[in-house]
């Protein structure tokens, strides 16, 4: 594979990745609840997150106030917020604690997801009853800031690399072709001279 083709492949892959990564694909409203947590016990969740920037981490909401659940068959009290004192600890993928406080649910906390990986959430029930504690993620709709930062950066690197290498490849092949043409011309003209000299040689002699 020559340099121009390598550049073209990199440019194509980079552009496709750029199109994909420059738009937002994060789930806008998610709520999950796994099991129940007894008093003074700690439950854990893990968020596997792409580096999508700032979003809201919520704890204690079964539904968001601005997004009412309208399922007539279900008792609306099923979606009541969990009001409970808890100890909340959040660790980022580098095991650094980014949040550790005693709080009363429901809360919404703005988090910066700037690294791809596992964010660990530890919730200790400080109330008097066993209950499920839902957690959730919310992102603003159509915010370019919530695109995947690492993919976006890689796409720009690949596109730039591809464009530069393709351009260099074209220039090199153009110069090479031009030189080849000139050398062919020179060879041709040399041959002509040689033929002419050889033709003239008997007369010279």
């Amino acid at each position, binding site marked *: *594979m020559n340099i121009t*083709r390598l550049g*073209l*492949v990199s440019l*194509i*892959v980079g552009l*496709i*990745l750029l199109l*994909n990564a420059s738009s937002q*694909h*994060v*789930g806008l409203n*998610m709520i*999950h609840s*796994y*099991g129940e947590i007894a008093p003074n016990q700690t*439950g*854990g*969740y*893990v*968020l*596997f*997150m*792409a580096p*999508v920037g700032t979003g809201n981490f919520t704890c204690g909401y079964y539904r968001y106030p601005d997004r009412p659940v309208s399922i007539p068959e279900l008792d609306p009290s099923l979606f009541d917020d969990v009001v409970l004192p808890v100890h909340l600890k959040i660790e980022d*993928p580098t095991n650094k604690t980014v949040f550790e406080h005693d709080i009363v649910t429901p809360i919404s906390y703005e988090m910066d997801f700037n*690294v*791809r*990986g*596992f964010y*660990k*959430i*530890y919730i200790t029930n400080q109330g008097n009853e066993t209950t499920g504690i839902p*957690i*959730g*993620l919310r*992102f603003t709709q159509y915010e370019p800031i919530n695109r*995947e930062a690492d*993919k976006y950066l*890689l796409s720009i690197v690949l596109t730039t690399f591809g464009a530069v290498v393709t351009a260099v490849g074209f220039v090199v092949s153009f110069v090479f072709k031009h030189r080849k043409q000139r050398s062919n011309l020179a060879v041709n003209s040399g041959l002509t001279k040689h033929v002419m000299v050889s033709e003239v040689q008997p007369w010279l002699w």
Partner: protein
Amino acid sequence: MQLDLLTSELRKVWGRPILELVIGFVFLMALSSTQTMTEIYSLEQYQSNFQLIIAETLVDALTSLTLPLTLFCGLLVSLSFARDYEQGLMQTLLSLPISRASIFVVKFVAVVVPLTVIAWSTTFFVTALNFYSDTNTLITVFSHAIWALPIILLALMFYAGMASMISLATRKTVPAALITLLTSFFVGFVSMLPERTIGALANYLIFTPYKAPSVALGRIIGMRYLPDAIENTVSPWVMLGLLIFYSVVLLVPTYLYFTKKFEVKE
């Protein structure tokens, strides 16, 4: 001699802009099957859930690549065989001191192996890009994705066998390419018929050459299907055996047809 033939065949088949187009299209399809990771798991089960979602992503990527790979494989094999017949190059090749078996194998390898490498590396790259957070996750992705390599190769062998059979039957580039495309679309369309159209028969479409590769991969790497799905009742090794059968079922007759000089006898 065979190596020179392979090099020239590779240059001929993968000349500009075929390689660039194939890589671009395969990458686009694989990328469109992935989604931005914003997952919530329980702390106790996050490792198993993470492996499950890697398996799902790989199977989705392979499923989305099935039709483009079929089309590209069919087209390239048609171009390789039928165009040589049409342009009279095959007669020159056959007059060289190389066996017919070598010519067949070289033509086959020149399409199938690079396409397998492109499809697998694209699938792995896209999945790794989506899940990479540290070396361990990369190893997990690789240990799952490595199974896709033989499965893609076996699937492509079936498509290439079908295309080479059509090419040898028609020996014209455009009809061979068109018949291969139409056959691929038709078989692909039949394999995707839903249960509401063909009833319980739809469950058995997992055994067709178009769905068997993704089901085999899913079963091997531990993808979870619905509890009553027929996929759960089939052993992954049975699916792999079925794929091996598909990979040779059209290839062997085509190979015999080509090497036993049937067209000369005609």
